[in-house]
């Protein structure tokens, strides 16, 4: 299993440009999340999805949009990038129903995308 992968790993944008970050997981997880981490801080939830075709706002959703057209993919879009969106972005996934039918909420994180907006 590749686990959770993110593309790209690094990106530099100019103010006003747009971009899409791609997250993919191969663990058949139901839930997927996008977080941002700023220096010296924990992660803050941007948006999340509890299943294919559904998305919801997290703690800091402004300036971002998401889509989950396929269960294994979760896209994060920035329509008009701002310097305040300079951050490291992490995707995560969780929730599997194990063979014993027990639910596991263990979270798995991708390697992160370092985004700089100038």
């Amino acid at each position: 299993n590749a686990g959770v992968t993110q593309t790209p790993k690094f990106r530099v944008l100019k103010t006003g440009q747009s971009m899409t970050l791609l997250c993919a997981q191969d663990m058949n997880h139901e839930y997927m999340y996008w977080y941002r981490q700023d220096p010296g801080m924990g992660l803050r939830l941007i948006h999340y999805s509890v299943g294919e075709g559904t998305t919801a706002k997290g703690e800091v959703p402004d300036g971002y949009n998401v889509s989950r057209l396929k269960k294994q993919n979760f896209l994060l879009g920035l329509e008009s990038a701002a310097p305040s969106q300079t951050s490291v972005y992490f995707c995560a996934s969780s929730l599997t129903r194990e063979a014993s039918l027990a639910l596991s909420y263990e979270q798995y994180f991708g390697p992160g995308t370092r985004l700089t907006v100038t």
Partner: protein
Amino acid sequence: GIQVEQSPPDLILQEGANSTLRCNFSDSVNNLQWFHQNPWGQLINLFYIPSGTKQNGRLSATTVATERYSLLYISSSQTTDSGVYFCVRTPGAGSYQLTFGKGTKLSVIP
């Protein structure tokens, strides 16, 4: 909301030393994980440990849910153990928000 407090905030160890990191939470927690964020920024799963004890090599963790704390033990520390260790309340049924502790910054010196 639930608060997660970690101690100590900073720790410097000589290579080979042992250490114990502590996480206290303000209310009952159904799902708890320990992560290591290495100096390159990667978040590495250490343990998913809602309760009980788990061991993985030189690391082990214990969660006593009824007393609202979790401990992470690092034995025979190595320089590659350096980084920030986060205790995290992870979402369960009906909730989707992670609650991070502020982390313990560990520096292992040769």
